[in-house]
């Protein structure tokens, strides 16, 4: 027994000596204890590139090790929400949307991103994007990539039909063009839109359409304003154009399904996220890459209201035990240097877009991404803090930035999908949506001070 303990203490002494030696040789950076940080992220192209290039970060910071947890968006949302609400501390960095950041910051769940290094150039972040991540004057997440929405159209089909896309289209002209472009026998549909129910699916688009038609979700007393003429006009437009000019089975089409339809040549027009531009432009993924045209989102009776703005951001939960190391990684992954690193490895077209002015000033990026100007203009005009036709008590572009909106949005989304499938009329659907939303809001204790 004593032999054993003597051997053990000798081993410990040797190990300690070796460690001290190694630390002094390696210099100051290794003086800090090794840190392993766990990063929870969604599976999309830009995040996959980040995971691949993170070996560069580990080379620069040998004392920080990275572990990745990649999940589907809805699973990730459920997973990180459980973790952060119970303060379990399973993750050091979470990939969350601009919907969650201000809500979680208010709950004091996130670490503020202050004291950023000078070379991070925080003023280079696009204003509307940074604004969406700010709570009480402090940033609570750093944007990895951001998107707005625009109109995509097929230049060849427009030419054949003798049509020209206006520089700033409105919904009336869009409807007229969609009718002319539709050839159901030839499986070409004038207008493709999201129809799959969900707060982040059909309701993302519908919310911007309602804003454009002069409507909004709630009045200043937090009373739902769904059963109103503006909503009626918007939903009638949405269901009429899709019934007349949309593809079959529209209520099961989300972003990916519509992307597949457009890239295989079945859509003449599509209004959706700017992230589709890069995918439609990619010859490997799209059969119509040479025929894609871009235009801003159509406008309605109310112009200049809030439109679409979504960003995926890296944030640090307060339950993380490695906050310093996590911050080092977050500032690296959202920096100008990182964007340049992606450009060196995968080309400028593959960089995560939408976050920094410097990206859009870069001539090399503009050369490979002809849609860059549209994306920048769309993001800059998105204005999530802006006002609707009548004043509103909430912020957000294609969503309402309150915790209850996930549930409300999905429920109303289902009701509106019912209009597309012919289950109910517009008036019936809006009345049902109004009373369901009013009930949820009452239960949640609105109006709140």
């Amino acid at each position, binding site marked *: 027994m004593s032999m054993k303990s003597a051997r053990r203490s000798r081993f410990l002494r040797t190990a300690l000596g070796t460690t001290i030696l190694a630390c002094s040789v390696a210099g100051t950076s290794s003086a800090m204890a090794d840190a392993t940080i766990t990063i929870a992220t969604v599976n999309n192209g830009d995040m996959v590139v980040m995971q691949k290039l993170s070996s560069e970060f580990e080379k620069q910071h040998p004392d920080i090790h990275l572990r990745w947890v990649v999940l589907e968006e809805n699973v990730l949302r459920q997973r990180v929400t459980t973790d952060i609400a*119970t303060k379990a501390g399973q993750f050091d960095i979470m990939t969350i949307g601009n919907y969650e950041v201000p809500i979680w910051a208010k709950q004091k769940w996130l670490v503020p991103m202050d004291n950023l290094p000078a070379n991070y150039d925080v003023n280079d972040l696009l204003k509307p994007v940074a604004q969406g991540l700010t709570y009480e004057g402090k940033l609570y997440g750093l944007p990895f990539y951001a998107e707005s929405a625009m109109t995509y159209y097929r230049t060849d089909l427009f030419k054949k039909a003798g049509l020209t896309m206006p520089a700033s289209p409105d919904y009336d002209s869009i409807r007229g063009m969609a009718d002319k472009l539709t050839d159901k026998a030839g499986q070409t549909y004038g207008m493709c839109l999201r129809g799959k129910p969900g707060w982040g699916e059909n309701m993302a688009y519908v919310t911007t359409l309602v804003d454009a038609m002069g409507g909004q979700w709630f009045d200043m007393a937090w009373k739902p304003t769904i059963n109103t003429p503006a909503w009626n006009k918007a939903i009638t437009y949405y269901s009429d154009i899709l019934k007349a000019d949309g593809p079959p089975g529209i209520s099961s089409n989300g972003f990916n399904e519509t*992307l597949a339809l457009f890239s295989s040549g079945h859509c003449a027009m599509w209004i959706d996220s700017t992230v589709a531009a890069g995918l439609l432009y990619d010859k490997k*993924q799209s059969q119509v890459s040479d025929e894609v045209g871009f235009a801003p989102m159509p406008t309605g009776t109310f112009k200049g209201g809030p439109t679409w703005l979504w960003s995926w951001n890296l944030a640090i939960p307060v339950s993380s035990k490695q906050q310093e190391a996590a911050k080092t990684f977050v500032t690296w992954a959202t920096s100008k240097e990182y964007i340049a690193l992606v450009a060196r490895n995968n080309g400028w077209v593959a960089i995560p877009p939408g976050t920094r002015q410097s990206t859009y000033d870069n001539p090399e990026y503009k050369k490979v991404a002809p849609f860059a100007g549209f994306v920048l203009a769309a993001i800059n005009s998105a204005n999530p803090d802006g006002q609707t036709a009548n004043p509103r008590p909430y912020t957000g572009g294609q969503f309402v930035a309150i915790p209850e909106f996930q549930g409300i949005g999905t429920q109303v989304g289902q009701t509106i999908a019912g209009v597309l499938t012919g289950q109910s009329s517009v008036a019936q659907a809006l009345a049902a949506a109004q009373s369901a939303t009013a009930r949820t809001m009452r239960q949640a204790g609105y109006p709140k001070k």
Partner: protein
Amino acid sequence: MTDSLTKRLVIAILGWTVALLLFFPIFWMVLTSFKSETDAITARLAFAPTLAAYGEVFARANYLAFALNSVVISVGGSVLALAFAIPAAYSMAFHPTQRTRGTLLWMLSTKMLPPVGVLVPIYLLFRTTHLLDTRTGLILIYALMNLPIVVWMLFTFYKEVPHEILEAGRMDGANTWAEVWHLLMPLTLPGVASTGLLSLILCWNEAFWSLNLTSSSAAPLTTFIASFSSPEGLFFAKLSAASTMAVAPILIFGWFSQKQLVQGLTFGAVK
């Protein structure tokens, strides 16, 4: 003669139809995994096969680490469930009390609770006991999750064993341990084996708890599959490749043990 031929033909056609219907989604998944992403979104049968999706899946995630976790957790969970269920089923089958029936029904009723209902309490318990993202944690959960079904199956198998055999054993001086181990086990081995196999398959395919209670160190193949579904961009081929790789081990295992499974599941049915 013709009558029996028609009957056999009808049964054969019915059997094949059901088998093909059940197999079709798996066939389609395997087929999609050999397509390119643009082919994967179409329903075309003619395409140029490629291994690109498998290449990408292998490059992005450490498949073997996930597979090892799946094996350890499924085997561990099933063995632990059997270890508790064998004595429980023995006592209920051979020494029943007035409450045995009620207890059995109550055990089964726990399966009627949707797992998400107890997510937060279990998550908090795991956090306090440091079981989050550990194999031990998942083994415990899986054993508990399968316990009602395992007890029920073993109970029905044990019920088929005549009491007289055990009585004879007792007359010869066998104690409870010898009774279970030397008499009951050999008699019901096909049943125990098929129960174990079923539990193994249930553990392997379980996704809710594995997704919620693990992050990286203990994540099994269900988490591996979930990481290939994407909100924006095409992913059908990669997701199919990941799913094929995840179901392949249990499918091969099931193929080899199907004799045991069928024998066990029909055990006692013809008596």
